[in-house]
């Protein structure tokens, strides 16, 4: 599955290929194409069991498209600006969106029910869920095009850790000198990586205290 950009008179399409049929790739003939006329898709992931995809749009909408029929299963609009990234939890029951509207939001995969919101002061480019804790890491910062006019301090190019249930920030990791474009947890949850506009991928291992740290409740 991939989507094409709306450009030069071309429409935005989501294309579906079945890898079991090599001819589809060879001939570049997806078995299904879903056109998106109003707002282009900026990010998408497969839903649980590969039954549908969850697509985030430029205008902040979220859609579920069936992978079989291509029909739109549900639609919500929780974000006000472009959705930059969608990542699912390890068990694919929930996913987190990162949006240009300075927030990241947690949703249920099947129902698209909005669960949590994580607020920052800068556009969020990427968000990832920890596989072992109720933690989420957000990466972002001032947009790349504005960065030259600001210092790194104002840009806030920090990876920020939030608690999933309390929506409270509990940690920040500095280091990038450009906005963070992508963050990901290691599958074992013991480290995470971030890739920035500055051209660096930074791999951070958590301190032992991270694993001992417990939220008070």
């Amino acid at each position, binding site marked *: 599955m991939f989507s094409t950009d709306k450009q030069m008179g071309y429409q935005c399409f989501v294309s579906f290929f079945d890898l079991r049929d090599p001819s589809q790739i060879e001939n570049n003939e997806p078995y299904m194409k879903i056109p998106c006329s109003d707002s282009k898709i900026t990010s998408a992931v497969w839903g*649980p*069991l*590969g039954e549908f995809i969850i697509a985030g749009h430029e205008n902040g909408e979220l859609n579920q498209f069936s992978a079989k029929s291509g029909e739109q299963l549900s639609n919500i609009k929780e974000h006000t600006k472009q959705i930059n990234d969608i990542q699912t939890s390890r*068990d*694919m*029951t*929930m996913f987190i969106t990162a949006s240009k509207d300075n927030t990241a939001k947690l949703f*249920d995969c*099947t129902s698209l029910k909005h*669960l*949590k919101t994580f607020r920052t002061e800068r556009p969020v480019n990427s968000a990832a869920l920890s596989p072992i804790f*109720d933690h989420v890491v957000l990466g972002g910062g001032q947009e790349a095009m504005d960065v030259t006019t600001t210092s790194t301090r104002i840009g806030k190019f920090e990876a920020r850790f939030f608690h*999933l*249930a*309390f929506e409270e920030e509990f940690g920040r990791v500095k280091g990038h000198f450009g906005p963070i474009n992508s963050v990901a947890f*290691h*599958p*074992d949850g*013991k480290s995470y990586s971030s890739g920035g506009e500055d051209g660096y991928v930074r791999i951070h291992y958590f301190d032992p205290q991270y694993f001992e740290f417990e939220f008070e*409740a």
Partner: protein
Amino acid sequence: MQDTEESPAAAAPPGAQGPAEQPERPDAPAPPAEPPQLQPPEQEEDEKEDEEREGGGESQAPPEPPEEPEQPRPPSGRQSPAQAEPQPGSEPEAGAEPGAAQEDGEAAPAGPAEPEDEISFSDPEDFVDDISDEELLGDILKDQPQEADGIDSVIVVDNVPQVGPDRLEKLKNVIHKIFSKFGKIINEFYPEADGKTKGYIFLEYMSPSHAVDAVKNADGYKLDKQHTFRVNLFTDFDKYMTISDEWEIPEKQPFKDLGNLRYWLEDPDCRDQYSVIFESGDRTSIFWNDIKEPVQIEDRARWTETYVRWSPKGTYLATFHQRGIALWGGEKFKQIQRFSHQGVQLIDFSPCERYLVTFSPLMDTQDDPQAIIIWDILTGQKKRGFHCENSAHWPIFKWSHDGKFFARMTSDTLSIYETPSMGLLDKKSLKINGIRDFSWSPGGNIIAFWVPEDKDIPARVTLMQLPSRQEIRVRNLFNVVDCKLHWQKNGDYLCVKVDRTPKGTQGVVTNFEIFRMREKQVPVDVVEMKESIIAFAWEPNGSKFAVLHGETPRISVSFYHVKNNGKIELIKTFDKQQANTIFWSPQGQFVVLAGLRSMNGALAFVDTSDCTMMNIAEHYTASDVEWDPTGRYIVTSVSWWSHKVDNAYWLWTFQGRLLQKNNKDRFCQLLWRPRPATLLSEDQIKELVERRRTMMEEFRKYRKMAQELYMEQRNERLELRGGVDTDELDSNVDDWEEETVEFFINEEIITLAEPDSTRSCAEKKFVCFPTAYINFGILNPYSCTLEGWMHQIFSILTHCIPVSLPKPFQAQDGDLYSELLETSGACRDDMPSKEEKGGNTPKEEDRDVMDSQEFTAMREEINLLLAEQHRMVALSMRRGRSPQGCQSGSL
């Protein structure tokens, strides 16, 4: 005057040497016992004072009453010498020129008349006296009695019994008895009507000061049930008469917007501020505490003359000046208020930040107490002045936690005042014979005080509720030498340190009497200490306390815990400590034991939750230790006031990690800006916690639901993935293949610092990798073990993640690279692989065939990498560890 002016300046720096808690320190300079009294007041700020001065000035004027002009001299010797002199001189003059004395003729008829008969000095008949009296005796006439003279000495007494002439004499006797206490009555007048007195009388004293005294003390005197005297100065009647009947609305003071005085709490990074005095007091700066380096906010030369103080909630910064106190605040540290108190030395804020108490040894006078002044901070008005009679430790006035009451102790009395009236609570002090010390609870309006033994009466520690004055607990103690009262910061516990000399012994034994304030009847438990006590401190917000005990070379610290059932448990004792002071973190749990001054600044950072010594450090010759208000950082400093070299302050984390060393020229004092208590009420905090709990609960519920759904889908998932369970990382263990890989590593000797060991490593040519679990292209998540490390090598070598190892392979005594290419190169399209070249088995010739530039370059790179890895393995093996620090028994 010069001397007295200098004394506060000289006394202040040593006083300021101590930390902010100076008032609590016994070595702080105590206010002098006998402040200079009766000094001529110099400041005109009090009406009363002005009045007083007028009175004082008047007393030098002739005190002759107008009613007795025929009396040339005052009846008593109380006349001031200034006036006594010109009068004798005036007599011969008057005699020489009788004309001039014509007006006085009545006064001195006999004297001048006699010489007139013998020698004629008389003027010719037609003589016209054209010299006025003014010209001749101007200086004497000035002192001429005036009608209004002495009017200041007259008082009017109302509500005097109305009596007939028969009892008038008796009444006069009574009145005389009452009013002659204040001075000699030289004239009295009982107006009469219809044969009875009118019920009010006039009395005249020798001097106006007596009259003032009489008004002050006799007003409100109860003669009997029906008659309560109202005494007023005669001159006051004029004043009262001229008061207009209409009340004028006082002009409204324009509201001065001072900005947000608590702006510093809104710092997005939650940093704290602190003030620093350096250059021996000439410069004062305010900094943000930042991890990297302090960020300066404000820097002023000669901001204060001695030291500075923050108000208890951090709103104001007080600076000391010869002429008084100035308060600063807001974002730009503008001046907010000034309090004029000449020679001020010590100040104290009320806990509510509403009142300021200042002390100056200069200003006191008998009538107008000014040694201690209480000010209203918001309006800047003086609320009340006090004398300072005894040399108690500062603060002389102790405030209750909410600022509603303040109290002071004098011998045998405890005076409790209330705000805002500043009057005595219930109009009377508490009489407590022999009271030695008292202290307010920081958690309620309870006062604790103790009195020593008096013959057969044992020593007592009393807890008294206010304002009801109800004694809630009295504890009797025997053979007491001394007591010290220590409140826990919340007022949950009170510890009384009791030094006793038990009967028949010589030495002093110390007991801690722990009062549990929050329980019914306030139960008391006792901890006996065998050794002498150096320091005691409660954990703020907790139920632990720390004690330093022992003799100098063998000092121990013990931590105790007061359990809910009242049992006091020793948690831990650390022996051989270099410490003489205990500094608890404001949040509790963490404590720093410091050996200040004589102990060279040894520091021990202790976590009392499990009683571990987190760090032991030293700040040589450190004189002060200051926790930040949040308990995140701690500052140790060497003050110029105590030590003239190496003046600096160091910033540490609460765990004892040194963050910054800030050297400042002649650094004097660092004070953290306090933070106000949380604005949330207890209920609100509870609600917050509750909300968090429900949030977590809801989230858990959702997760449970999601997990269930996930489990339900398990079968479908298995089906989709061809029966392979991907839920668990180590599922399908049985399908995994175990391989032993051995391969030759190129010998390449890199010279290291230790050539011997290198050689021994290099001699070992084979590295044995035990096993490789590779399954379906998923990187084993536990890749920090040795297997993971091997993966890394493979990844480096082939620039891709190994997908699978198709079959067991044995490293030949040949080239490693070809093997690797064969095993893992298959998944990398852009690399020349055996298969593409058509070769089936790795052979020496094949390698030669694939002779491309890229290949050679890569090969060299790999060799280098491998050699490096080899070295690492060898080195770590020597240390008995696997490269990643994990256990690996297979090597």
